[in-house]
């Protein structure tokens, strides 16, 4: 039987990670968490999470960066904001989840095989290049990159979309594509 060490030593912490997250707009109140578990109690997706939202908050506060950024929890967040609204300490938990997602993508440490981060990145690419998103093309791209077999399973849905006239393979583009791309690039320049 393989044994995993679960005790945490100070060396397991990535010191400063919690402070960094707490300095991001919308994430400041993380330090006020009283670990009551309301966020998990209202989270509709908590049933599939490897850590509950409350645990993610505590792990972030204590710098367990690798564990947090590698967790499935942050990718299960559907941004329904129930936790943020119900939190008795008014912590912007949804915004914290966004911040953790951004860091996981930046450092490419999200769990392998998880389509959500792939979708997010394809989405932003589409916005950057064309200014608008075609949901059908976007879904196709995501499936091709993560699980082409699953795409086959979606064929019934595709047929349904065609039948109801909601299927379109044409990528809409805005006229101000160059402007939008320029604007987005200023963000990287400002960093």
């Amino acid at each position, binding site marked *: 039987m393989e044994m995993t060490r679960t005790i945490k030593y100070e060396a397991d912490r990535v010191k400063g990670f919690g402070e960094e997250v707490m300095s991001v707009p919308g994430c400041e109140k993380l330090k006020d968490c009283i670990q009551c578990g*309301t966020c998990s109690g209202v989270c509709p997706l908590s049933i599939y999470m490897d850590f*509950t939202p409350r645990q993610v908050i505590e792990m972030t506060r204590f710098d367990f960066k690798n564990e947090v950024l590698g967790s499935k929890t942050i990718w299960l967040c559907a941004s329904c904001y129930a936790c943020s609204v119900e939190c008795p300490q008014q912590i912007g938990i949804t915004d914290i989840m966004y911040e953790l997602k951004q860091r996981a993508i930046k450092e490419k440490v999200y769990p392998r095989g998880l389509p959500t981060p792939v979708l997010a990145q394809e989405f932003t690419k589409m916005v950057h290049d064309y200014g608008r998103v075609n949901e059908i093309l976007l879904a196709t791209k995501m499936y091709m990159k993560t699980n082409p077999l699953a795409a086959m399973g979606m064929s019934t849905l595709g047929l349904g979309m065609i039948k109801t006239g909601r299927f379109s393979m044409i990528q809409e583009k805005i006229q101000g594509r160059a402007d939008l791309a320029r604007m987005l690039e200023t963000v990287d320049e400002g960093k």
Partner: protein
Amino acid sequence: MQSTKENIRIGFYVCHCGHNIAAMVDCADVAKYVKGLPNVVLSRDYKYMCSDPGQELIQKDIREYKLNRVVVASCSPLLHEHTFRSATAAGGLNPYYFHMVNIREHDSWVHTDRGEATVKAKALAHAAIDRVAFHKALETKTVKINPDALVVGGGIAGIHAAMTLANAGKKVYLVEREPSIGGHMAKFDKTFPTLDCAACILTPKMSEVGAHPNITLWSYSEVAQVDGYVGNYKVRVKRKPRYISEERCIGCMDCISACVFKEPKFEDEFNEGLGKRKPVYIPFPQATPQIVVIDPNVCLNFKRTKGPDGTPIVSDRCKKTCVEACGDKNAIDFTQKEEIKEIEVGTIIVATGFKTFDSKRVPAYGYGIYKNVYTALEIERLVNASGPTGGEVILREGKNPDGSPKHPKSIGIIHCVGSRDKKTNVWCSRVCCMYSMKLAHLLKEHTGAEVYNFYIDIRAPGKGYEEFYNKLLDEGVHFIRGRVGEVTDWAMTPEEEGKLVIRVEDTLAGYVRRIPVDMVVLSSGLEPQADAQDVRRLFNMSCGTEGFFLERHPKLAPVNTFTDGIFIAGACQGPRDIPDTVAQAGAAAAEALVLIDKGFVEQEPNTAFILDEECSGCKSCIPLCPYSAILYDETRKKAHINEALCKGCGTCVAACPSGSIVQNLFEDEQIFSEIQGVLAYD
């Protein structure tokens, strides 16, 4: 600018207050700076100026250095002005030659930059040095204390305070808004952690109050106006009409059974709406006074519409079977009107209590949506032997297959409803953990149900409280650490069908759980009474940000207010349980007794006076005085201030067009020199 008549010799002391000041202000540097200011003979810094050696230092220096002014830069004058004035007097100087600078609350505690805080301390010290030169010798005056007292609120706090004063031989007026005294405690079944029957320990005290020769009990009454000052308050009390003569009613309740409404039909406030009462009723069997009340909103003998002044109009539509039943006692009087009583008292104890948080404000917990969600106060009545069900715990919704009432087999008690939540009330309501456990015990005892407590933290810090928690654990009551996310009625699994489902993270196990129960109890928190702000204004008190009445000092004057002679007791000052409330009520009574038995108080000589030769007799000050202390001398065509009535508010001083009113301790040259002093530092 400076007075040349006398040779000013100032002694200056800056206090470290341990680290309180010294950590943020360089005290030695402040002392060094002040040493160089005009008229300063000596300047010292010292660890604790309020200590005996600190006070002796002042006395010794006055004698040795022939000081005639003293300035101490330390904490708030609220705390130690009296201490240092006394030290100054003990050194042989008039105490009003002393002046105090607050460099703790106004400086070290509120700043984070030591350099700048030190600069501020110097500027404030400079202002005081310039000001104190213009101080004059003043005499304190004394006022007599009326020995009668007023207690406002007839809950356990008011009852205990009134009894304490009355037993000490003082005459007490006890004013209660509801038809009976008893307050929230009268609704409780048992008390934690001893599980004494609440009625058994409270009702004897209630009857004692009702029968005490020194207590005038005015129930169904409210304080309408308070004038005057410590020792001499004039209070107007509004006595609401109960349409029953208190003198003639003997509490036989024949009228209630005779009422044309055969069955009780109207929501019973005392039973939290779980029971019904008639238009003529007595709130509960042990009500004190034992006098019935008629509710004009539902009594047939009143019109549904009210008169232009808001008073109910008699319709005379009813057969008045109640009057018939009352017979010769002739106690029912439909023409009774609101009455105003005027009393004079020396001291007032405000014990107006709390209200419970409205659980509807947390819609996620389903109160008002799902019938089997209850408030804790409703459960108090439901488990109570004299409650609407005789102590049988019956669900509001759902029947057994045979049509009999259903008892809960599983119960979830949700702690911290409305409390510890920035969206509602941020404070911990202090009593809910314990009363939740008490109800858990009682519900388990009455129903044998599985009982779950959902808590954030268990707060059981009183005597015997942790032991009570242990007892509950032994009894098999479940405790799940997690603030409930939601109470809902949609089922995911067969065992959830027809139940209320509590969704919560069991934070200790790390699982999100769905727990189906038959009954949900919401442990609603405590908050200030809805009209706390009005009451605050009435008695000239302060409130904290959360709306509870503010004590004069959180540690050292917990039952005093900022108005002399007015004290607070019980949950109007903040959430507290019965033992703490009773202790506080006793303390408030003792504080009142101090004044009463001393017989007089010394008052600040900060009164205003008129420079006779400059007064033009314009009378503009007279209507402005809130204490009616200014009279007009017709013969001399001058205004005159009655020093005994003047409270030193300064309104007339600011309003006088000819500048002919002066206030002791706030004379123009004192204030101007203080301003110049504070601006002199650069």
